[in-house]
C-alpha cells in the first residue's frame, strides 16, 4: 500500500511540475492527443499560483472548485467527442483569470475595493458566460486598482500587484493582476478593461499582448462600470493569435448593451499603410521606448508595409478631455454604492475614488458644466476628427504605449497628477472609441519589457490582428513568461 500511495503522490507532484503549454493551440493539441488532461492542467496552474503568487499578489480570489468542475467537463467532452469538441467549444481547456471588475455568479467580485470586499454577484457578465460556454476554465479573480482607477496597481485596496519581471516595479494598471498573471503564466488568458489605457499599459509593462477592442464591439453587461462612454472590455494573452481567438468569442451583440453592434469587417487587399504620429514622440518619451517603436516600424517596412508620417494635432488635449469626461462619468456610476443593496457604505471608498468622484461632481455641477464638461465634449469631437482624418490616409497607427517602461512602486503614488499624465499616449484611443493592440517587442537596459501599440479605425480589429501576427511571425516571436 505504501508503494501505491508513493506512486500517487509522485504522479501528483509530476502534474504540478508539468511544462504548461504557452499557447491555446499547444494546449488544445495536448488535450486532444491525451498528452495531459484538463484536470492535470489545473493541478499545474494552481500549484504554480500557490508557489509564486504570494510575491506577486495578482489574484484576489481563487476558484479551485469551479476550475476542477470545468476541467472534468472538458475531459469528458474530449473523451466523448475527441477533436469535434473543439468545434463546439473553440476555447476548450483554455484557462482564464477575470479582472475583479467582471461579475462572476457565485464568486466574490470586489472591483479591488473594500466597499465590495464581501460582495458575491448573483449573475455573470456576458463575457464571462461566453468564455465559459466556449470551454474555458476559470482559475480566479485578479487584482486591480480599485474601481479601475489607476495606472500602476497601487490603488488596489488589497495591496499592489508586483511586476513579475522585476518585483520592485509596478505591473501597470488598472488591470494589474490580469497582466501580471498572464506574464507569470498563472493563466493562459486574462480579461481586463481599458478606459484610458488600463489594458494596453499593463500589457506593455508586463511584456504580454493586450487588446482593447472598439467601443461597442464587446458587451459591457456585467462589468462594473467606470466611465460609460469610455470603458472597453478586452483581454491579455501571450500571442496575437491567441488574443484574436478570444475576441471571436467575446465580440458581438448580446441584447443587453445598447452600444454594441455586430459589424462585418471590411475586406482588405493585403497591402497596408501604417502612420507614425509625430505628437506621440514628444519630449518625455524615454529614448529606449522611442527606439523600440521605430524598430517595430522598420520590421513592418521590411515586410512591404508602407510607413508614413502623420499628425494628430489635438493629442495634447487628450489628457484634459479624459480627466474631465472620465471623472464626471465615474461620479455618476459610483453613486450607486450607498451600502443599501450591496457592499459597504461610501466611507469605505479609498482616496483615489474620492478624488475622482469629487472631480467629476465639480465639473458637472451648476455653473461649471459648460466650462468643463461641455468644453471637454467639444474637444472630444476634435480628437475623433484627428483619427478619422488619419484613417483616410493609413490603415493603422503605430505608437508607444507609455512614455517610459514600468516605474518603481511608490515612484508616482504620491502625486496624482503625475500618475494621470502617464495615460497621455493611451487615453486618446478611448476618447475616440477606437481599438488598440499592445504588442511586446523586447526589453530595456534595465531588463524591463518594451513594446508598442497599433491603433485602428473603429471596428478595424482584423487589420490590427493581421499586422500584429505579421510582426510576431517576422521576428519569430516566442511567447515569453517572466519566470519558469
Amino acid at each position, binding site marked *: 500500500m505504501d508503494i501505491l500511495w508513493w506512486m500517487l503522490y509522485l504522479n501528483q507532484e509530476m502534474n504540478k511540475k508539468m511544462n504548461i503549454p504557452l499557447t491555446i493551440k499547444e494546449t488544445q493539441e495536448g488535450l486532444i492527443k491525451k498528452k495531459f488532461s484538463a484536470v492535470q492542467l489545473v493541478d499545474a496552474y494552481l500549484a504554480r499560483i500557490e508557489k509564486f503568487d504570494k510575491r506577486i499578489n495578482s489574484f484576489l480570489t481563487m476558484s479551485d472548485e469551479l476550475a476542477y468542475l470545468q476541467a472534468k467537463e472538458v475531459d469528458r467532452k474530449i473523451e466523448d467527442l475527441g477533436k469535434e469538441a473543439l468545434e463546439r467549444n473553440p476555447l476548450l481547456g483554455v484557462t482564464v483569470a477575470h479582472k475583479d471588475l467582471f461579475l462572476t455568479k457565485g464568486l466574490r467580485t470586489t472591483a479591488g475595493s473594500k466597499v465590495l470586499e464581501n460582495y458575491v454577484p448573483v449573475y455573470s457578465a456576458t463575457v464571462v458566460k461566453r468564455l465559459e460556454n466556449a470551454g474555458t476554465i476559470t482559475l480566479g479573480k485578479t487584482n486591480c486598482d480599485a474601481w479601475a482607477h489607476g495606472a500602476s496597481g497601487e490603488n488596489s485596496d488589497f495591496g499592489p500587484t508586483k511586476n513579475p519581471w522585476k518585483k520592485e516595479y509596478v505591473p501597470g494598471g488598472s488591470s494589474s493582476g490580469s497582466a501580471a498573471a498572464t506574464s507569470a503564466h498563472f493563466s493562459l488568458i486574462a480579461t481586463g478593461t481599458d478606459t484610458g489605457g488600463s489594458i494596453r499599459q499593463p500589457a506593455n509593462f508586463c511584456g504580454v499582448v493586450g487588446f482593447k477592442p472598439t467601443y461597442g464591439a464587446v458587451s459591457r453587461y456585467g462589468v462594473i462600470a467606470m466611465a460609460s462612454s469610455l470603458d472597453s472590455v478586452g483581454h491579455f494573452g501571450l500571442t496575437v493569435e491567441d488574443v484574436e481567438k478570444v475576441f471571436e468569442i467575446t465580440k458581438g451583440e448580446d441584447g443587453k448593451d445598447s452600444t454594441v453592434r455586430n459589424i462585418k469587417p471590411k475586406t482588405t487587399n493585403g497591402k497596408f499603410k501604417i502612420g507614425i504620429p509625430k505628437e506621440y514622440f514628444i519630449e518625455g518619451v524615454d529614448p529606449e521606448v522611442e527606439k523600440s517603436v521605430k524598430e517595430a516600424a522598420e520590421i513592418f517596412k521590411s515586410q512591404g508595409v508602407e510607413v508614413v508620417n502623420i499628425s494628430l494635432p489635438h493629442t495634447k488635449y487628450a489628457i484634459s478631455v479624459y480627466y474631465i469626461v472620465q471623472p464626471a462619468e465615474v461620479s455618476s456610476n459610483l453613486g450607486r454604492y450607498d451600502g443599501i443593496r450591496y457592499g459597504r457604505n461610501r466611507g469605505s471608498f479609498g482616496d483615489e475614488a474620492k478624488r475622482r468622484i469629487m472631480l467629476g461632481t465639480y465639473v458637472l*455641477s451648476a455653473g461649471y458644466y459648460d466650462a468643463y464638461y461641455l468644453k471637454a465634449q467639444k474637444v472630444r469631437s476634435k480628437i475623433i476628427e484627428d483619427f478619422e482624418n488619419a484613417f483616410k490616409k493609413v490603415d493603422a497607427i503605430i505608437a508607444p504605449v507609455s512614455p517610459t517602461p514600468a516605474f518603481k512602486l511608490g515612484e508616482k503614488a504620491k502625486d496624482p497628477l503625475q500618475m494621470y499624465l502617464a495615460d497621455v499616449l493611451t487615453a486618446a484611443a478611448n476618447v475616440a472609441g477606437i481599438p488598440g493592440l499592445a504588442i511586446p517587442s523586447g526589453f530595456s537596459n534595465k531588463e524591463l519589457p518594451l513594446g508598442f501599440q497599433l491603433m485602428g479605425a473603429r471596428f478595424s480589429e482584423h487589420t490590427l490582428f493581421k499586422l500584429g501576427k505579421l510582426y510576431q511571425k517576422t521576428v519569430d516571436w516566442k511567447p515569453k513568461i517572466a519566470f519558469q
Partner: protein
Amino acid sequence: MHVVKLAKLKLADSEIPKFSKQLSEIISYVEELDKADFSKTEPTSQTTGLENVSRQDKRNTETVLSQDEALSGTESVQNGYFVVDAVFESRDE
C-alpha cells in the same frame, strides 16, 4: 467643500487641505482647454453614432433576478425589503 456634500462623501477635517490642493492642481491642468477656441465645435458624448436603440418590451428571463437574489447583497433586510435610513424624522405627539 461643497462638492463633498454634493457627492455624498465624508472627509475628515485633516484630509481637506490635501484633497483641496490635489483637486486644484488637476483643475488647473485641465483648464488648458481654454487655450484654444472650440466654441463652434459640436460636442460628442459617445462614439458609436447610435441613437434611440430600443428593444421589444418583452421580459428577458436572463436578466431578471428573483426576490431572494435581489436581496442577497446585504444582511440589512426585513420582510423582503431593504432597510434604509429613515427619511422622515419621528415627531413626538
